[in-house]
């Protein structure tokens, strides 16, 4: 299984980490009813300010803290505008992304343009005792920087909070039926405030992983659409923590594969086999249930399976220029969303401001 070896697995886990943080944050925010397009901007500011502070103080963890704080600051702006001022959530998000791009580029150019490229040491990898000794995958999976483990823990925590605690119930009801939540005594806007702040916190943390966590440096627009892919992962994951984790791993896996394929002069047969395998899984998943069963799905999946199997056997010499390989993660994300139709349901009141009914508004002090 040539391109899908331990190196691919390790790269996938590395690339998935910032996505997981950002997507889990976005998940909480969206379950509370707020769509946060500004996630990309939160990652970018998190990436920059964590780098800035880590560079200035020499402390990795102070940098991480600064990244989180920067993300949460943007989130607070988002919360004030979308909850207090009832501004359009998408418009505010677009504005925050432009603002974050300008702010990080500006401060970066003011401080670092006249200096040689600053490269910080990346955090050491920590081996999990016992598990890292598993032959083959042990070193790839269980010898990672601390924040990789934190990311996986965040998924579990999000699952537990969302589905096993009253807090989670409050969050879900704020996004699903805010009027019922309100009647039950839940302060909808307060829950949404918390949701946005969590998105900012984890988005900033994801950004910190991108810069100081993985490469030890900052380049302009380092987030390069990761925030948008995280948004897509929330949708693809069906607004459920484990689904979101799976989506992040899938997108990161494609990205890791793409990085490997760039260096080769032909696509290995194992990749075609993997394409066929994904199509098989997709077909089973769609055709199992009557409501998603269709001739179109069967035909298109069959075509892809046949094509993948044929190419696996024929082993043609196929290659792409590296620029086009770089587009692959975005293409796959789009295809994944397109293949999803009818299967997931978003929180019912996602993106809709909740206004307290005005007979009660009148009685509010």
């Amino acid at each position, binding site marked *: 299984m040539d391109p899908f070896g331990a190196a691919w697995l390790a790269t996938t886990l590395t690339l998935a980490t910032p996505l997981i943080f950002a997507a889990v944050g976005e998940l909480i925010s969206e379950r509370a009813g707020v*769509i946060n397009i500004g996630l990309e901007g939160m990652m970018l500011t998190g990436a920059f300010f964590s780098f800035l502070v880590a560079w200035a103080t020499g402390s990795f963890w102070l940098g991480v803290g600064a990244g989180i704080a920067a993300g949460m600051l943007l989130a607070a*702006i988002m919360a*004030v*505008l979308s909850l*207090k*001022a*009832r*501004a*359009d959530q*998408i*418009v*505010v998000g*677009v*504005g*925050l*992304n*432009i*603002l974050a*791009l*300008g*702010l990080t580029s*500006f*401060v970066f*150019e*003011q401080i670092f*343009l006249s200096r040689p490229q600053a490269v910080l040491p990346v955090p050491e990898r920590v081996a999990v005792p016992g598990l890292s000794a598993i032959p083959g995958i042990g070193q790839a999976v269980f010898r990672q920087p601390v924040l990789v483990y934190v990311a996986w823990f965040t998924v579990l925590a999000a699952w537990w909070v969302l589905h096993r605690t009253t807090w989670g119930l409050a969050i879900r009801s704020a996004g699903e039926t805010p*009027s019922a939540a309100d009647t039950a005594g839940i302060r909808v806007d307060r829950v949404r405030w918390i949701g946005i702040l969590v998105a900012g916190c984890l988005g900033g943390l994801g950004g910190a992983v991108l810069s100081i966590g993985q490469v030890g440096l900052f380049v302009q627009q380092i987030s*390069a*659409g990761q925030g*948008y*892919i995280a948004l*897509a992962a929330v*949708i693809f994951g069906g607004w459920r923590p484990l689904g979101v984790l799976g989506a992040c791993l899938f997108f990161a896996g494609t990205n890791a594969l793409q990085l490997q394929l760039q260096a080769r002069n032909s696509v290995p047969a194992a990749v075609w086999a993997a394409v066929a395998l994904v199509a098989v899984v997709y077909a089973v998943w769609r055709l199992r249930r009557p409501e998603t069963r269709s001739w179109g799905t069967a035909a298109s999946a069959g075509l892809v399976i046949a094509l993948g199997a044929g190419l696996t056997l024929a082993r043609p010499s196929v290659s792409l*220029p590296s*620029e*086009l390989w*770089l*587009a692959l993660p*975005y*293409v796959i994300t*789009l295809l994944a*969303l*397109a*293949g*999803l*139709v*009818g299967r*997931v*349901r*978003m929180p*019912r009141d*996602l*993106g*809709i*401001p909740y*206004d*307290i*009914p*005005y007979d009660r*508004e009148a009685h509010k002090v």
Partner: protein
Amino acid sequence: MRPDLRRLATVDAWAGLAASLAAVALALLVSMAVIAAFGGPPLGAIQSLWTGAFGSTRQVAGTLSYVAPLAFVAIGWILVAAVGRISVGFDGQILIGGAFATWAGVSLDGLPGVVHLTLAIVLAALAGAAWAGIAAWLWAVRRVNEIIATLLLNFIAFRIVGWLVRGPLQEPTGGFPQSDPLLDSARWPALIPSTPLAGDIFLAVALVALLPLVLRGTGFGYRLRLTGANDEAARHAGVDTRRVTALALVLSGALGGLAGSSLILAGQTGVMTDGFNQNLGFYGIVVALLARNSPLGVLPAALLIGALLQGGPYMQAAVGISSALMSFTQGLVVVFVAGSVFLLRRRRATGGHTGVGLAAGTDRPSPVEVS
């Protein structure tokens, strides 16, 4: 998910104008504070910004040259907003449209000037429309959220152009990631010699003038606005809302493609480079928001944003403040414009209900909008 863009459009026009101006003033003030915080001269920076944008004929021409692409994008945004959707894919459409304009401009030799230029423009518009058509199809048929789809398509387009300028469209020496120079017959004639101001601004002004006519005076515009106001009611009235929405997205893509054609065919360098879109796809959205989705406001708002873009590099050279700050300023403008809606509504709704709360309860996402 219903983007409530009506809130931008329904406020009183004069109050809206005042709020937009206040948003710009506030954004500039905050930017000046940031300049001061980095040890720059705030007033000197503003002064050099002004000089850079309007100080000489050449500078004014540079500022005006931004108006056409920004206005094309803004019209595209307004069209999609009218139907109640959001497109953020203009940068991708600019890139793809510009790439096709470049191909036409480089390779179709021997055509008379008018024909060549027209052909390149039409090709760019069609390419932009087709690129947006992917998002429209994904939305209408596969129920993919149009915001995410258009965003992802931007990144794909960026990589495609990155490949084109290093591959099929690269200049023959292969030394630089850029295209061959365009043939003169494919380029917009300069209105003022040796400045970037070209005839494309007339096309932009014409389309801005056409927009209210289309929105208010045609059956298509009516169906568009009906769908945007209440798609369920529109469906009951017999409007094929999916088709209308998809058509609006495709048309906005054509406008994005036109913006791309402007950057290439009216650009001063006459070559296509990596990332020639310069984020104008997003700055055009700033223009539309600053204009509060009103066609009347598009040209003045485009002039203002164009001035920031033109004056920025001059400011950088004069006082050493990076022109990237202008993107920050524009982000602030959007944030303040979005926030001002609250104040405006408050002013109108004297006591009690703001007029949107009840609607929020009934604005259920239609099945089409899932994911």
